[in-house]
């Protein structure tokens, strides 16, 4: 084998390394051997323990048999019987004694006793102290013998005692076997055999098969101690003397055996020696038994084998180590020489060559290395020439670059982040107005040139680009030493290594001062323009607000004015009605006409006021509509009925054309108002004896169209757009006809509020058709019609009633006083303020209180609350009479607890009807 080559050498190395797996294998085999050996030893001890237990049990059983047999013997029966009958025959007893003595010697007992049925010990071979005593009453009544005797008599069964010190035998431990003696099926006493413990010890002390360190250990429980009953190898003279407390950490197997345990294992014995053992419980003597061998002996072959194996392995490993060391050194030497040569060449000694030494591979390597060095030497010389050439080229390129940058006013820089070198081109120095000869390029010089306010931003932009690995661009100011400001735009990018750390940054700096200045001028101009636009917008907004306020004020004014007009109108209308209905002082015909004229004018005015009020409400968005299904033909018929006087006056024919029942979703009252307005227009602006055709049709898509077609003069087409505008009246020719001029405007707003539409078509000379359209209502929603009972009857009351009217307006008060005065059984109290009214109410407890809302001081709602809170007045019905006639006012009043709510001007008929209802 050629050992100068590496492969054979490595093979040799592997060969030497093989002791390692060998050690593993040895370990494994040793383990397996240990397991098997342990198993074998344990089984061996287990069967030895079983055998020993069998031996002891057999010995004990034999003793039991002896006792039973002797108890059956003629001798035992005879002796006991003789003593029982007090007819002891000394000669015969001597025969029996001889018999028993022989037997004791042959089998090996210490003593034999006979006890009669009363407990008297009547016979003994050794004549110890117990002979002649009574076991039930005598000094030995608590001995194990006495107990066993009593048990044997009581249970008619043979007993064996535990080993215990027995006083009559000089305190030596004793074991007795006691059997009952029968005569004719009745018990006459017992026979007791005192065992020879030396014989027992011979049985238990047998160490056959236990080897050098083996022994059988026996013990019993004595109190709370383990008492050893046999000889012990480690403790001299231990029988019935050596004790271990129960629960002690030594002698675990014995403690287990004494409580019935049965097993085998490796543990510690009574002196803490490591042993392999098996333990058993012997129930007859209540003994525990441990059969054991010292571990050292049992596992001696294993320990021997282990020793040999480990020594061999250690030697092998040592040898392998030394061999590997020598081999390695031989291998390493030429490599070291080569390394030394390489270092010298690397240091520039290109003339150096590696020595040719060691194995042939190394020699080849050195040869190849030397060839390479020669090649290197040649190329190095070549390279120097090329470098010179390239340097010239580069300096030319640099010059060109600098010129280009000067022209473009762009400088460039490069920062090597590894060694902190910063390179600026000439143009950067130029831009920063630094003298290249005095200042070196540095980050500090760069930062100093930046306007102090911009430094953080520039720094941040650069740091951010390093974090995100993206390029950056920032325009900032430079503060020149003489205070001039220059604007430059910087652009930069960085290179990063694989770990994401920056290596190098490059960037450009461009002078943008001119550009920046232009840009700023432009921005200023733009700002100014925007400001002006904003000013104008604000002016416009103010103007719009002004207009809205004015419009609101107008509506508010209309609303207030109408309200203020209603109160005097109430008086006017009321007194006019009174004049008409006063039966006591009837009016002359002329007066009646005048009063009628007052009422007519008044009603017209009231309508006008109401319509203006409605219009105002719609415009201020305060109109409340209660939408419900309304049966249109019925409503039209009702309106026709209301307008009958007017039609009769003008002899106008009204015709209703309907197809079935059309129901629309609308506010009933408002729709009636619209229909009345359109219908009265159709009548008013018709020619005499004309006719009005009213049609009601469902026109598809769930809408109902109501059209009123008159035979008037028609309306010119150019006037049509103005029709629905408020306060526009078309022709002066109509001047004779009454009209507010807002009826149609109001109708249009109302119909639109209900989601409908209104329109007109007209042909001059033929007539006009006004129509409205509304959504059709679902028929199921139609509520059952309820009959109105508006019939007012002049009533009388059974008893006198007192009424209280709280009202600050004297005209209204007078009106009510006048109405009440027609009923003699009613008396009226009146008050001008809430406080006064409350006093009167408390004092008189009226049957009904009428209350104005707008009172000076305490208002109507306060008065009502006081009335309701006082137990005296809380049951009196209170009705409100107020000029606050809006629907929400009425709702509010009813919610506050008014029994009813009447609006001014007071409808006398309605008022009387209400009195009638409440007072009856």
């Amino acid at each position: 084998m050629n050992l100068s080559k590496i492969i054979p050498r490595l093979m040799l190395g592997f060969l030497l390394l093989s002791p390692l797996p060998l050690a593993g294998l040895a370990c494994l085999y040793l383990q397996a051997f240990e397991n098997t050996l342990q198993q074998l030893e344990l089984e061996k001890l287990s069967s030895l323990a079983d055998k020993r237990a069998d031996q002891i049990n057999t010995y004990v059983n034999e003793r039991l048999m002896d006792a039973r047999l002797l108890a059956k013997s003629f001798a035992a029966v005879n002796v006991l019987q003789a003593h029982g009958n007090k007819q002891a025959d000394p000669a015969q007893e001597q025969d029996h004694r001889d018999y028993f003595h022989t037997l004791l010697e042959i089998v090996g007992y210490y003593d034999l006793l006979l006890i009669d049925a009363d407990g008297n010990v009547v016979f003994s071979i050794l004549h110890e102290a117990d002979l002649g005593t009574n076991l039930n009453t005598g000094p030995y009544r608590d001995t194990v013998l006495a107990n066993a005797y009593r048990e044997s008599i009581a249970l008619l069964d043979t007993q064996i005692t535990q080993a215990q010190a027995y006083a009559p035998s000089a305190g030596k431990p004793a074991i007795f076997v006691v059997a009952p003696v029968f005569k004719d099926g009745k018990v006459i006493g017992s026979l007791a055999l005192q065992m020879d413990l030396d014989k027992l010890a011979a049985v238990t002390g047998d160490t056959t098969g236990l080897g050098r360190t083996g022994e059988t250990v026996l013990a019993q429980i004595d109190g709370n101690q383990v008492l050893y009953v046999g000889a012990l190898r480690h403790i001299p003279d231990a029988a019935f003397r050596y004790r271990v407390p129960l629960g002690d950490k030594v002698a675990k197997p014995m403690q287990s055996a004494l409580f019935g345990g049965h097993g085998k294992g490796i543990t510690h014995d009574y002196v803490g020696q490591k042993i392999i053992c098996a333990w058993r419980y012997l129930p007859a003597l209540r003994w525990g038994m441990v059969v054991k061998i010292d571990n050292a002996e049992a596992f001696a072959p294993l320990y021997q084998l282990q020793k040999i194996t480990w020594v061999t392995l250690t030697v092998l490993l040592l040898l392998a180590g030394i061999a590997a060391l020598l081999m390695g050194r031989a291998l390493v030497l030429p490599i070291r020489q080569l390394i030394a040569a390489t270092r010298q060449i690397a240091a520039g000694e290109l003339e150096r060559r590696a020595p040719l030494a060691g194995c042939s591979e190394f020699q080849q390597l050195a040869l190849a290395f030397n060839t390479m060095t020669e090649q290197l030497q040649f190329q190095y010389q070549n390279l120097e020439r090329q470098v010179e050439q390239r340097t010239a080229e580069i300096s030319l390129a640099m010059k060109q670059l600098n010129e280009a940058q000067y022209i473009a006013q762009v400088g460039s820089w490069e920062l090597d982040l590894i060694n902190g070198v910063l390179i600026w081109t000439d143009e950067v120095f130029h831009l920063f107005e630094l003298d290249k000869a005095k200042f070196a390029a540095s980050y500090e010089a760069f930062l100093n040139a930046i306007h102090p306010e911009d430094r953080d931003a520039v720094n941040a932009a650069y740091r951010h680009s390093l974090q995100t690995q993206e390029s950056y661009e920032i325009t900032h100011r430079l503060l020149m030493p003489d205070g001039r400001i220059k604007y430059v735009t910087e652009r930069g990018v960085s290179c990063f290594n694989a770990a994401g750390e920056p290596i190098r940054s490059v960037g450009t700096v461009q002078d943008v001062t001119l550009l920046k200045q232009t840009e700023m001028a432009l921005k200023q101009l733009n700002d100014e323009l925007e400001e002006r636009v904003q000013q104008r917008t604000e002016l416009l907004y103010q103007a719009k607000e002004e207009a809205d306020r004015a419009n609101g004020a107008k509506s508010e004014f209309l609303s207030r004015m109408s309200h203020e007009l209603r109160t005097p109108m109430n008086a006017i209308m009321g007194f006019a009605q009174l004049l008409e209905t006063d039966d006591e002082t009837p009016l002359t015909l002329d007066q009646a006409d005048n009063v009628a004229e007052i009422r007519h004018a008044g009603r017209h005015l009231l309508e006008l006021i109401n319509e203006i009020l409605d219009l105002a409400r719609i415009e201020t968005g305060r109109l409340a509509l209660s939408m419900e299904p309304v049966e249109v033909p019925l409503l039209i018929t009702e309106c026709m009925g209301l307008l009958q006087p007017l039609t009769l006056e003008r002899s106008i024919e009204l015709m209703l054309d309907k197809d079935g029942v059309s129901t629309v979703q609308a506010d009933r009252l408002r729709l009636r108002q619209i229909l009345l307005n359109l219908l009265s227009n159709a009548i008013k602006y018709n020619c005499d004896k004309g006719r009005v055709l009213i049609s009601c049709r469902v026109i598809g898509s769930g809408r109902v169209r109501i059209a009123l077609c008159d035979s008037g003069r028609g309306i010119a087409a150019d006037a049509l757009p103005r029709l629905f505008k408020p306060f526009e009246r078309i022709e002066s020719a109509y001047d004779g006809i009454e009209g507010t001029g807002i009826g149609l405007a109001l109708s249009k707003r109302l119909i639109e509020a209900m989601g409908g539409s209104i329109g007109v078509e007209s042909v001059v000379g033929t007539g006009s058709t006004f129509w409205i359209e509304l959504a059709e209502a679902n028929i199921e929603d139609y509520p059952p019609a309820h009959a109105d009972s508006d019939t007012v009857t002049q009533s009388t009351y059974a008893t006198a009633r007192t009424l209280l009217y709280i009202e600050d307006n004297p005209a209204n008060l007078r009106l009510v006083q006048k109405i009440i005065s027609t009923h003699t059984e009613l008396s009226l109290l009146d008050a001008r303020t809430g406080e006064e009214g409350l006093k009167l109410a408390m004092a008189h407890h009226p049957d009904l209180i009428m209350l104005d809302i707008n009172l000076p001081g305490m208002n109507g709602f306060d008065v009502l609350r006081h009335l309701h809170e006082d137990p005296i007045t809380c049951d009196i019905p209170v009705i409100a009479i107020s000029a606050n006639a809006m629907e929400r006012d009425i709702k509010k009043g009813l919610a506050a607890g008014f029994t009813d709510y009447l609006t001014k001007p007071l409808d006398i008929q309605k008022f009387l009807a209400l009195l009638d209802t409440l007072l009856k």
Partner: protein
Amino acid sequence: MGVVLITVFIVCRYYAIPVQPIKIGVVHSLTGTMAVSEKPLVDAIHLAVEEINNQGGLLGQPVEIVVVDGQSNSAVFAREAERLIEQERVSVLFGCWTSDCRKKVKPVVEKHRHLLFYPVQYEGMEQSPHILYTGSAPNQQVVPGVRWAMQTFGRRVYLLGSDYVFPRTANLIIADFLYASGGEIVGEHYLPLGSNDVQAIIQDIAQKKPDVVLNTLNGDSNAAFFSALIKAGLNNQPLVSFSVEESGMLAWQGGQLTRHYGVWSYFQSLPGEENQRFVAAYQARFGADRVVSDPVEAAYVGVKLWAQAVQDANSIEPGPVNSTLLRQSIKSPSGIASVDADTRHLWKMMRVGKVRPDGQFKQVFASSAALRPQPWPTYRNRGAWQTLLERGRP
């Protein structure tokens, strides 16, 4: 490398062998008149096996129980035992309650040279080489019980039992014992199993006023007897019951009598760590209201003894196990359970307990040590007993 390969090879060899469970057969009545008594024994066997399996089974194998229903019928018991041995190939049998069943199963296990564990106290006079008796023999229960009764209450004794083999044989032994030790039988009466016709007996007892009544009634006749005693105003009559354990005392209200005693080797109320653990485990597994008793404990101990014998024999075959079995002892809830190789019975404590109102016993007397089992009481030889049994009277 070599070490790794060898390790892998060894691990594979050890784990490649599928682990077969060790089958054990349990034949007890799950239906019929004996089911109430026998079901708790099946539970006890389950508990013991679960404990063994939780500690890793036997010889590395889990233990699996095959339970069959004996239907309270001895013929079914014999048939099912045969089937368990031949078809299920069980390693051991646990079962039987009544002597009738045991006597039918005995020839089956003997024919197959198999092994049966019998858990109930019985009349003795039997010893099969293929049965291990874990209940008390007469000399461990009846004889010392009678002796205690006589010492405590007096020598005039009244015998009452159900009319079948156990009470008849037990009373035979008692009569013989009384004769030898100077007692007197003032009355002897047998009721058919299940009969409630106790009136004549009560009158007899009231008239004869025995010092103590020795009761070997079985089943719910006891309920009728106890309540009739109370009705007749005989609450204070000393009474010793040999066949009523805790659950029976509770069900039949034996605790209403003021001088009522039971004789067993085990009471649920025994102190001692081993018993506390056993009762707690049984109740945790089967319900806190469950009651254990002498036969339940004997069934449980039987399984544990068998398991230890299997480990000693390193085999599950009935033959080898039967031979290691005879040298076993364990720590048991009732004390030390140790096999007597000569008689194939266990060394047993004899305990007398006063019946408490809740059916539990309060121990008032116990033998000073475990009693050696003697299926044939030794004051006669076996031949004499055989003659006596055939004659039926001493």
